[in-house]
């Protein structure tokens, strides 16, 4: 049943078949999306009517390809901006939180750590609605009491960024923290005994050691933001992100242009994943 033990051919065959079916289940939606992006048809359905790049490049009455579909292109741009801002914020605060919880001792540390990992088990909807409730409350208060109209507190770009950051920082903290656990504290002690301050030793010793994990955390939080829907939908203003735009199109007006944009995402992720595999192999 394991590598070193013999098994009957029937058991082996059945097991391999199950694994094959599972991976078919896994890739089937991605293959279906990709293939139908090139179907010469106005509907997202079989039968296959021939190869066409219309859903990428066409600009006719009944076909608007991805590269001419302004709403879709804008939503991609909004998503890239949102994800960049969210990933930068999450990585910085997540790294600081990892340093704080791994290396400092203070009162109420356990309680604070509980709140820091709580977003792992709080459904995204709940984070969305509770941040919407309190930001609206603060926004109203500022406007009625002091006459300040602070755009940050009403649904829009920055509220989405902060909403996603509320859980992004947790994941960044855990990723960086995992590497920090392997950090040899004598390195820092050496720096401190050579009259470096604690902040200098973090800056010149710890951060360079953490660099791979920090880059990883940036990539992970970027992708989390790019595909987030559950939290984003409550905090969004007039600038739709790609998942929100996709959702409303799937519900109300789907054309194969959705396959075209999905195909681009599938392609990008696959290339990034394969590149990552080869890079990590070369390092070994």
């Amino acid at each position, binding site marked *: 049943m394991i590598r070193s*033990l013999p098994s009957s051919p029937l058991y082996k065959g059945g097991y391999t078949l199950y694994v094959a079916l599972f991976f078919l289940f896994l890739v089937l939606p991605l293959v279906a999306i990709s293939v139908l992006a090139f179907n010469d048809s106005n509907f997202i359905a079989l039968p296959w009517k021939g190869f066409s790049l219309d859903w990428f490049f066409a600009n006719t009455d009944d076909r608007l390809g991805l590269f001419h579909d302004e709403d879709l292109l804008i939503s991609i741009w909004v998503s890239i901006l949102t994800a960049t801002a969210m990933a930068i914020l999450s990585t910085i605060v997540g790294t600081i939180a990892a340093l704080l919880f791994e290396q400092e001792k203070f009162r109420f540390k356990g309680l604070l750590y509980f709140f820091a990992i709580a977003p792992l088990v709080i*459904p995204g*909807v709940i984070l969305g609605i509770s941040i919407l409730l309190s930001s609206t409350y603060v926004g109203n208060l500022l406007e009625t009491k002091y006459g300040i109209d602070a755009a940050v507190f009403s649904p829009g770009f920055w509220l989405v960024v902060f909403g996603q950051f509320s859980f992004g920082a947790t994941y960044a903290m855990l990723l960086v923290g995992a590497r920090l656990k392997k950090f040899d504290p004598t390195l820092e002690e050496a720096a401190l005994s050579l009259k470096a301050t*604690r902040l200098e030793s973090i800056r010149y010793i710890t951060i360079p050691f953490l660099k791979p994990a920090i880059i990883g955390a940036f990539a992970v939080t970027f992708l989390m933001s790019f595909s987030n829907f559950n939290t984003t939908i409550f905090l969004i203003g007039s600038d739709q992100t790609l998942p929100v735009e996709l959702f409303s199109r799937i519900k109300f007006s789907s054309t194969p242009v959705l396959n075209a944009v999905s195909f681009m995402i599938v392609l990008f992720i696959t290339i990034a994943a394969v590149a990552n595999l080869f890079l990590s192999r070369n390092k070994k």
Partner: protein
Amino acid sequence: MEGNKKAFYFLLTPVLIWLVLLIIIPHIDLFVSSFKAENDAGTLVWSLENYIEFFRDSIYWRTFLNTAMYAIGVTLLAFVVTFPIAFYLTKVVSKKYASFLTLLLLIPLWIGELVTIYGWVIILGDHGVINESLKWLGIIDTPIKLLYTDLSMTIGLLYMSMLFMIIPVMTTLESLDDSLIEAASDLGASKWTIIRRIVIPHSMPGIINGAIIVFMLVIGDYVAPNILGGKSSLWFTEQIYNQFLSTFNWNEGAAFGFLLLMLSSAVIWLALKLSGQKLDKVGQ
């Protein structure tokens, strides 16, 4: 030391801002808002009205119970479907293929829920991949209704959450020494006995971690039930969305959100208690 103090506050401040402004205050706000309702004069006052409404209208509490039971079901399903895969990837297949297959597992995760759910719409639709293939093979004449049913919703929920079961289970299985399985086998234990007495007990921490994350994701999901589910497959998050985005009764929505948060916390707490684990470990 003076420098250490400075460094400590430098680390503490951003973490406190994150947790207080985006986690603690919003959840207190959620709690408070859920106990406020408009009186006859239209002003917000303390009230139990939102919770009374939840029990008065049977659609709300029925949906709530339905969602909870369904989420438990999907969590069990995710375990049954993915456990053989996790075992295969860690113990059966050669290391060379394992890293490639593990990468393949992660790709749908990074592509994001909206795109993969859209893939299932294409596959399961009346003119989708499955129906058209069956027609082409001459097995059916009229399409079978697959999309907008409990089946399609289950597939979607399973697909988007199962990765979170496989990964922690794989982590615990990697630490299981093969020689334990070999020894049991040498002593005449059957495969079933080995799995039941050695493999599953050893991977229990991973199974619990996976189950917690899967349950939380499924119970808080909106996209799969809304896009793939039928009219009868009501999901509690849909009630929350309706209160916030259609009827604009935010206080009622806050009460629903708080109930959902209590439900997921209770189930997670129970799972941790029964397995004797701490929340700290869930993130790893």
